[in-house]
């Protein structure tokens, strides 16, 4: 994976997730961050910090991004969500416009 194609997502606790740009762009919010015409800090450094998203949730979200891409390309599998994550995950989803 080339460096230009990746993006770094940082959780509230400081954990860093490096994922493919295409996966990150499943989120409309992240897509806007990276493509908005003005040079925002995020699109310059290709890293986004989410001070309100915990590592657990962000991990799940990254998993979801990849699952979503696979699903969209025709690989239909289940995406397991642990019940205790549900609420926070929904909050994050709303925030990320996913």
């Amino acid at each position, binding site marked *: 994976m080339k460096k230009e194609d990746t993006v770094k997502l940082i959780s509230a606790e400081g954990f860093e997730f490096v994922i493919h740009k295409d996966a990150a762009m499943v989120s409309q919010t992240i897509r806007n961050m990276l493509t908005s015409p003005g040079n925002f*800090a995020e699109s310059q450094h290709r890293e986004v910090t989410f001070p309100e998203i915990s590592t657990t949730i962000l991990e799940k979200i990254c998993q979801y991004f990849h699952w979503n891409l696979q699903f969209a390309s025709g690989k239909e599998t289940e995406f397991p969500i642990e019940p205790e994550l549900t609420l926070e995950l929904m909050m994050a989803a709303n925030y990320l416009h996913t």
Partner: protein
Amino acid sequence: MSAQKKRNFQIEAFKHRVVVDPKYAEKTWKILEHAIHEIYNHNASGLSFEELYRNAYNMVLHKFGEKLYSGLVNTMSFHLKEISKGIEAAQGELFLVELNRKWADHNKALQMIRDILMYMDRTFIPSTHKTPVHELGLNLWRDVVIHSSKTQTRLRDTLLELVHMERSGEVINRGLMRNIIKMLMDLGSSVYQEDFEKHFLDVSADFYRLESQQFIESCDCGDYLKKAERRLNEEIERVSHYLDARSEPKITSVVEKEMIESHMQRLVHMENSGLVNMFVDDKYEDLGRMYNLFRRVPNGLSIVRDVMTSYIRDTGKQLVTDPDRIKDPVDYVQRLLDLKDKYDKVISLAFNNDKTFQNALNSSFEYFINLNARSPEFISLFVDDKLRRGLRGVSEEDIEIVLDKVMMLFRYLQEKDVFEKYYKQHLAKRLLSGKTVSDDAERSLIVKLKTECGYQFTSKLEGMFTDMKTSQDTMQGFYARFGAELGEGPTLVVQVLTTGSWPTQASTTCNLPPEILGICEKFKSYYLGTHTGRRLSWQTNMGSADLKATFGKGQKHELNVSTYQMCVLMLFNNADRLSYRDIEQATEIPAVDLKRCLQSLACVKGRNVLRKEPMSKDIAEDDAFFFNDKFTSKLYKVKIGTVVAQRETEPENQETRQRVEEDRKPQIEAAIVRIMKARRVLDHNNIVTEVTKQLQSRFLPNPVVIKKRIESLIEREFLERDKEDRKLYRYLA
């Protein structure tokens, strides 16, 4: 770890919900406001999208959406006011440049603002029915910048000025123009229409009104049309370069109206260069241009068409009524064909094969061809000429083309039965003299006539062909039987013609020379022997003969003469001098024919096998004739034509007319009976219209004649008048 978490599962309130800092909203807004300022100042690179988005998100989430929204409106308005001032301050040409640049900036800023306020755009705005951020930005731009008192008129005037400059041939910055117009369109089609298009159209109308006035004073029609076309194309090009595509019909209609519609009459009738002159000078290009331009405006084409129709009618009328033309029927028809060809070409090259124009052309021809009552005769003569000699050595396709053209003229004729009459005469002459160029061509024309007018029309013509064929067989049979017996005597070729099919004239027979008479009698008895119940009579006025003659110095010639001439010449076998009266007595040829045949024998130079005393052009009753010993000719075969008028003379013409009228009577009667049989009861006017309709394909019956025929039918008790209503007729079965 997850197992442990599962055990401790409990629902917690989201922590931010609890934060109710009264200054929270104010603080967050400050951050966002600052960001917007930075964005407008091109300073956004340091900003964190996530932070801004999160702040906006939280504001909306914590029910401060309203504050966020109004704050946005205020901040944006503030910046736009600044921008507007900057634009207003721009001098001269820089005005548009500055406007364009600021517009681009604003668009970019707007995009960024919308992105960071996306959450508000997504949730708050739809639920409160506010204007979405992007649209809000455009509206503010429109109200604050474009509609600012100083900019609005200045912008419009600048744009119109640029258009005017371009119309005057200067080069303008089309890219800039396109961007500005695009901006107006982005602000909503009403902005484009109100702020630009409306004025643009008005100014254009003024411009073209003035310009067309100048052009029409200084140019001829062709040049004017060229200029108008160029202007039109320029406008279309302008639209495609930097205006809204929907403006095209509007601006073209302005140009059409000002440059064409208001000057149509004047253009068409322009002296020395108008439509008529274009026709005269075969200016297909100009005609095509006129067609294409006039097609765009209502009634444009009908003006062109009317002028064309009346012009064709005029020229046609001149042609058919010109006494010089009538002298030469072949030339007359050829000219008609040329005229038709010319306008066919005009219509196909310049008028896009427009059906309405073709119809106009046809109706014009129909109109003037029928102005001259002799047109049917002349057309038949034309065909006769073509089939006698004109088509010799011409390929079959070309023959077809000529025949098709003739048929086209034929279609215009109203009196098709008159044509039939003449055609029959001419065909008979061709067949009997064996002078037709091609049997195929003859038959092809008959087939064409048949498809055009039906079986009835050509049945007699076909009968003539059948007679020719049967006669050949009969003659073969005759010679097979008597050939040996007849030996060296003269050879007889008889064509047996069915009465009725042929245009026979009740002719007084002449006395045939005894040499011929014998074999004629023989044939007669042979023919009547094989066909009982028939009657043969000799049509001596239609035959021809080949004679072998020896002259004074022993020169031998074969003379091709008519039957009458043969009769006269045979008399000179026994005498050297005969007076007119002697000849008349011996042959009993009718005086008119005899004079004609003597004239051709004695008075035509190079063909004068007889000598006349006294020498003069015309035959008098006390002339004397001698065998011309000194006759010489380079050719062995000498063809002595009868001096016949090709064209009918006036009395003959009258006679033919009368016969045609006679022939029409039974046709009209038949039509009346057919109609009445179907309708039983009908009033006079309706009968007349129906009869006219039925007979239209053959001729145009005269209402007076129809009335006479009805009366005659009443007399013969086919019809009766209604007892109460005298206008009604009843059919009596």
